Structures are given as C-alpha cells and as structure tokens.
C-alpha cells in the first residue's frame, strides 16, 4: 500500500488546525480589533511626539517607526512561541504520545503545526499595512515595503524559530514555565529598539543590542523603508541574521532531539 507523503501529512495538520481555529468563532475578530487598537495607539503617540530629533534619520515620524517595530516583534514572537505552545497543547490533550507512536516524524508534525499560525501572522501583517495605507496613502515607499518586508521578515522568523525550538526543548523537559521565550521576547523588544531608537540607550546597553537578532532585522527594514537605504547599505545586517540562523537552527534542532530522547528515557514524554 502507498504511504502518505510528507506534504500530505503536513496538509492534514494544516486542515486539523484550521478546523480547530474555526471552532473558536471570535478568535480572528478579536485579533483584528487588537491590531486596530495597537496601530491606533502608535498613531496617536506619533501625533503627541511629532517628529523627534532621535528619529531624524527616518521619514514619517514616530508612527511608521513604531509600526515597523511592532510588525517585526509580532513576527519574532510567532517564531519564538509557536513550537513550545504546540508541544504544550499536544501534551495537555494527550495527543503527543499518540502522534509519536505513528510513523510521522516529529519534524513533520512541528512544520505542519507552524503553518496556520504563520498564515494568521500574514493576515495580521496585512492588517497593519492596510492601517498604514489608510493613514498615509501613497506617502510611504510601498515598493520598498513590498521588497524589504518579505525577505527580512522571513530571515527574522527563521532565527526566532530556532530560538523557539530551544524554548520547545525546555517545554519537553520542564513541561511549563519556560523562562527562555519570555526573556528573549522582552529583551528583544527593549534592546532591539522596537518602539524607540537604540541610540537613546546608554552606550553599554547599546553593546547588548548588537547581541539581539531582532536588532539587525529592525534596523535593516527601517533603513530600507524609512531612510531610503539600498540593499548594499543593509548587507551587514542581512549577513548578521544569516549567521544567527546558521548557528542557532542546527544547534536548536540538536538540543530538541536530545530532549525528546531524554524524555523517552525518563518516561516523561506525555507528562504535562
């Protein structure tokens, strides 16, 4: 008998997640409302602060600066939290052990589980951009946005997914209370300058900003969209993100497979 292909298995997971999401009727509506409030808050803070000197390198004042910060951080958090959230959900439902007793590989299960949250993220990003379009019309460099955002957000999401796999590693072992995801999300938000320019931080803290992957993603996107920079100008930032991905992705996968092995030995795979 022929066996289901990896793509068919991934598609089945996507179908499952869509059906589960559809059973929660208000989820998407609440998400849309949340984005409206969030973007509205940035807009009015932008009106309050005008065009501050600290943002003189960027066009458009505070609103587009903060909007890009919010978009990058939303993307980062998705990469960071999805895997650990999915593992935790499967443990609680008692389905993790059932799935691991099937011939479907854990990597396929994790990949499939990532796609519906990713689709939600794309909807969210589109709504942010619609909001920006309503406010700014053609004043924003839409060509730069269309060229810069997909590539740099993809790189950002790969890097943060690797950190998310580290987070899932902790969940496999500790079940709850993963300190990594929260710490990375909060420190990235602060040190990468999601809502304010890093140049406002004291010099010694700016050093730590350079250790945070989101810093490079944010700087490159803002430079391309709001500072008329070209790809050559942001090449260093792009290479930094690639280097983060090259180191973090294989090491996180190794750590995760070790954690699953330990859970198989200690008998704690399905505990929650």
């Amino acid at each position, binding site marked *: 008998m022929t066996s289901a292909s990896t793509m068919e298995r991934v598609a089945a997971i996507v179908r499952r997640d869509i059906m589960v999401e559809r059973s929660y009727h208000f989820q998407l509506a609440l998400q849309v409302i949340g984005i409206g409030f969030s973007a509205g808050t940035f807009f009015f803070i932008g009106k309050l602060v005008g065009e501050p000197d600290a943002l003189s390198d960027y066009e458009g004042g505070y609103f587009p600066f903060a909007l890009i910060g919010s978009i990058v951080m939303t993307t980062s958090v998705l990469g960071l939290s999805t895997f650990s959230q999915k593992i935790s959900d499967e443990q609680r439902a008692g389905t993790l052990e059932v799935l691991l007793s*099937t011939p479907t590989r854990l990597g396929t*299960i994790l990949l499939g589980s990532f796609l519906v949250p990713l689709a939600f993220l794309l909807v969210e990003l589109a709504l942010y951009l619609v909001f920006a379009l309503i406010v700014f019309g053609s004043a924003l460099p839409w060509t730069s946005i269309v060229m810069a955002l997909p590539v740099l957000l993809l790189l950002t999401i790969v890097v943060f997914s690797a950190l998310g796999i580290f987070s899932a590693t902790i969940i496999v072992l500790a079940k709850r209370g993963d300190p990594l995801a929260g710490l990375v999300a909060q420190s990235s938000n602060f040190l990468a300058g999601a809502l304010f320019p890093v140049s406002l931080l004291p010099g010694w803290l700016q050093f730590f900003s350079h250790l945070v992957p989101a810093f490079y993603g944010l700087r490159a996107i803002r430079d391309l969209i709001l500072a008329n920079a070209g790809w050559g100008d942001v090449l260093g930032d792009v290479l930094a993100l690639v280097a983060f991905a090259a180191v973090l992705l294989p090491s996180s996968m190794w750590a995760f497979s070790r954690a699953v092995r330990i859970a198989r030995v200690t*008998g704690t795979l399905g505990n929650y």
Partner: protein
Amino acid sequence: MTEVDRVPVVLNVEDVVKVYEPPPWWLRPLIRTAAREPVEAVGGVSFQVRSGEIVGLVGPNGAGKTTLIRIIATLLEPSGGRVTIRGTDIAANPARARHSIGLVLSDDRGLYWRLTGLQNLEFFGVMAGLPPATARARAAELLETVGLRGRDKLVFGYSAGMRTRLNVARALLAQPELLLLDEPSRGLDPVASRQLADILRTQAQSGRAILLSSHRLDEIAEVCDTVVALIGGDMRFAGAPDELSGAAGGVARALATLLTEEGNDMEPR
C-alpha cells in the same frame, strides 16, 4: 512443531528491563520525576504474542503494565532486553516498527476534542501513513465498526465509552499487525465493556495480535487466550487462562488469588 508454533509471532518481548533513573543533577531543575532513587519498573519480562492471539497483561497498580506497553509502543526506551515486532528490533528501527503498531493509551484523551470523531480519524489516518482518500474511507468504515456512525459530533460531547471506542478505531486505522491497549475499559459501563470485548475478538479473528492490559480480571479471563501476570515488575505467571481454571470460582478468582498473594488489592468483578 505444534499447531500454535506454526502461527507467526508478531511481538517478541525478550528479557525487557526498565529502571527509572533520577535525571542527572544538571537536569534536575528542569525535569520533575517521581523517582529520587533508581526504581525498577520492569525486571526481565519475556513473552510473545502471535497473530490472532489476545494476550492479557494483568497486575496491580505499579506492576509495570503501562511501562511495558509504552516500551513496545516506542515511547519509552528500555534499560535492557529486546523487543521485536515481526522480526524488526524496535530499538534499531523504531520508525518501521511504528507502521505495525496501533496504540490505545490508558486515558480517554489522545483525541482532539474540538474536532468530530470522523475528523479525528481522518487526521490520524494520514499521520498513520494512509493517503488522504484512503484515510477518509477507512475513517468512515471504522466509525461504523465501533458503533459510532450516525452519532458523530465534536469529541467533547462524547461519553467516556464513546471516546474509548473512538480511540480503538484510531488505533485500527492503518490495519496494524499489533494492537496495544492499556486499560481501555477503565471507566466503561458493562455494556460498553462488552462492546469493546466484541470488537477485540473480531480483530483477533482477522489475524491481529493484541496485547491488552487491564485491571478487569473478568475481562482478561473472558477475552484473552494467554495471560501474563506482573507483580512489582516481575512476571509471576504466563500461560493460558485454562491453566488457572482448576481453582474454585473460575479464572478471574484464580487470577485474583495469584495477585493478592503479594498483598495487593486486585479483585475479580
């Protein structure tokens, strides 16, 4: 060679040992386990399950039944010994072994409660390796087999008995050669237990090897061809229920006597 010897062995458990070790010191802040000292859960258990045979695994709480089933299902690594399924060593090739296994765990979770029974079966069918169209057809067929056709709804609306039957259907999706059931009748009323026993007998008649762990001594006595009794991780009896039936009160009473010799609380129902 006897007639029984000619029936192919599906599951071979050879001297399996499982000792739960406390995690290494550097992992203790992360992993919370019950074991502070090494605990031997299974101590050198050996038995076989042949095609078409139902083997009952019986023993008091903590006897090692669930540990043994999880080892065979590739969810838990043994500390020693060897398990083969149709000759495949599960330690050497767990992915291949999983093609031959259908698993029902001891609680009525293991299902997505926000999906219907049919949607659950279709999903798990593909995860078990069936192409989507085959999984759909098989899901509908099995819903009928376990008596849930026409009663399909979101799983959170199912009774415990319905969820158990759905779990059994899930385990049968890929027509596994070996069906592992860990206390499937826990929490079932007598009618549901009877229906489950009928399903298991039908599956065995179709050539499936079945390993059934249960606290229900009457169920074990009635359904199983062979009984393996575990106490404190050690195997105390392995043989046909008939070998016990000389005792007054029948097989269930004889099993209870065997198991209560060690001061545990097993009782026939």
